[in-house]
């Protein structure tokens, strides 16, 4: 008897949704084994990782705060991947959005009107869209590979931020630390659940998820973009312009990631610092796939990933586990997910090797 994979006639819808759950389970098992190997008690470790973050209102609000940038970036990435545009640079678009949002926020004075933060968010969104549009232009005009370009533009964005906080945007009264001045109250995103740090960003991100779902499943433009992504020859047959999907997906993704960056600097951070994102734009790639490129699935996936990230930080402070652990688990989650995803288009078959040899012989005759 042998185990073999054979293609399914039709991709399995059930497996499409079971696969993320199996991936989570697999990651939990792997985490347990890793804890055992590190000489910690696995039960306690898993509890800290997956349950403690949800044990208080403050914990929940922190999860919501983490979810916001992850979800916004993942929505944009899901759009790109559905358009067959392999943007992996949401991180750079987020950083540029943070820079522009921060630059606008620094213009606010003590007398600025209460709605000033709207300008901050707009600035972030526009700058992110421009950064994404740069990738679209390079691919459209010069056929540059968007995977490389989007990744490299991330480093440029980070170095730009570094230059600005060490130079032009440095706080003159900041004792030469590489930080900007802290923003005026009017430039900050309003809190929605005082005394926690949760702000208007989360409802904005959830609305964005609903709008994205509406766009993908109800709008003609969303349909066109997905036809071009899934079957370019069908798009030519229909007479759809493939360049439109490229530009649309990259600018929208950039705008959402840029908005996420502005929400970060004008939210929990409150100023420009050399590191405004712990890799939200990269983690969002995992969120997008874990959520099956489905905007509502991304909401759940962003929540799961936020829990694990916060759990990782708690494990570090409470159990003395290395900081890298939550990064390791995120990577394992993506790999296990991709492995399980094989079973969406393939199925496992037990095959008697002797019979298959015999059938092959018959077929030859």
């Amino acid at each position, binding site marked *: 008897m042998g185990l073999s994979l054979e293609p399914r006639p039709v991709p399995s819808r059930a497996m499409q949704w079971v696969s993320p759950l199996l991936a989570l389970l697999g990651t939990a098992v792997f985490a347990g084994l890793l804890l055992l190997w590190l000489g910690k008690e696995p039960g306690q470790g898993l509890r800290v990782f997956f349950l403690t973050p949800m044990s208080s209102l403050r914990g929940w609000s922190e999860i919501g705060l983490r979810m916001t940038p992850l979800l916004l970036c993942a929505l944009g990435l899901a759009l790109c991947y559905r358009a067959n545009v392999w943007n992996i640079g949401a991180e750079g678009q987020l950083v540029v959005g943070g820079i522009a949002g921060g630059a606008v926020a620094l213009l606010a004075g003590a007398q600025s009107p209460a709605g000033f933060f709207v300008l901050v968010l707009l600035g972030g969104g526009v700058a992110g869209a421009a950064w994404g549009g740069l990738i679209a232009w390079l691919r459209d005009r010069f056929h540059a590979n968007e995977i490389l370009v989007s990744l490299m533009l991330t480093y440029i964005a980070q170095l730009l931020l570094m230059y600005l906080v060490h130079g032009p945007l440095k706080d003159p009264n900041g004792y030469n630390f590489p930080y900007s001045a802290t923003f005026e109250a009017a430039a900050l995103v309003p809190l929605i659940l005082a005394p926690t740090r949760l702000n208007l960003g989360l409802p904005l991100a959830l609305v964005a998820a609903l709008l994205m779902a509406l766009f993908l499943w*109800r709008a*003609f433009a969303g349909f066109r973009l*997905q036809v071009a992504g*899934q079957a370019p020859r*069908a798009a*030519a*047959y*229909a*007479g759809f312009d493939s360049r439109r999907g490229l530009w649309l997906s990259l600018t929208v993704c950039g705008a959402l990631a840029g908005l996420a960056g502005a929400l970060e600097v004008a939210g929990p951070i409150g100023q420009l610092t050399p590191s405004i994102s712990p890799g939200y734009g990269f983690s969002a790639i995992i969120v997008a796939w874990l959520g099956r490129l489905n905007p509502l699935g991304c909401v759940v996936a962003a929540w799961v990933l936020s829990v694990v990230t916060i759990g990782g930080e708690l494990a570090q402070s409470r159990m003395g586990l290395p900081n890298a652990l939550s990064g390791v688990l995120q990577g394992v989650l993506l790999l296990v997910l991709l492995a399980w995803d094989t079973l969406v288009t393939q199925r496992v078959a037990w095959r008697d090797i002797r019979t298959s040899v015999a059938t092959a012989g018959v077929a030859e005759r």
Partner: protein
Amino acid sequence: MARAICSRLSGERLPATAQHGAMQMAIDGTDVRALGIAQRRSHGLAFIPEERLGRATVPGMALDWNLLLSRREPDWFSWGFLRRRRLAALARRLIERHQVRAAGPAALAVSLTGGNLQKYVVARELEPGPTVLLVSQPTWGVDVGAAARIHQALLDLRAAGAGILLVSEDLDELFALCDAFHVMSAGRLSARLAAEQAGIEQIGRLMGTIDDAVAA
């Protein structure tokens, strides 16, 4: 070669330059040389390409959504949003009328057998009542029953007064359906042969000219 000509005639691919040479291309007197496939459709063109999966339909999309590949009329949209109920109703009607074996309008194109998907594509393209139909290898890999239905649908369209350009390598199919033939061989198109005059030997000789030319 036939493929390249089909995608030029359909308007999927337009010549890079504005020069179209001496070539004429018109539907009901309207010059369509500079128009893309969507605009040609609005002038009455329908096109059934040889690949039903991946070109005539998107494999991973439902049958009702796949209708939209060849529909641009405002009936299907309101404010840029799709009227899904209408689409599903039309898909259901086509499935029932043409006896397509499918789970329903929400069935993915890839879930249908070749013959059933081809029946659906033919039904979709003929439903608006085109004045010109371009159809390539309509019964490739299609079962006998479906092939007979497709042939009948083409004959019905001809009876309704439409012009049909059928590209096929199946001589039986061509003799059963066509009023006149052109043979394409080695990149050259033969003169028109009326069906009454054309015999299988004559067609065969025209198909073989390439070999004669090479031998000579």
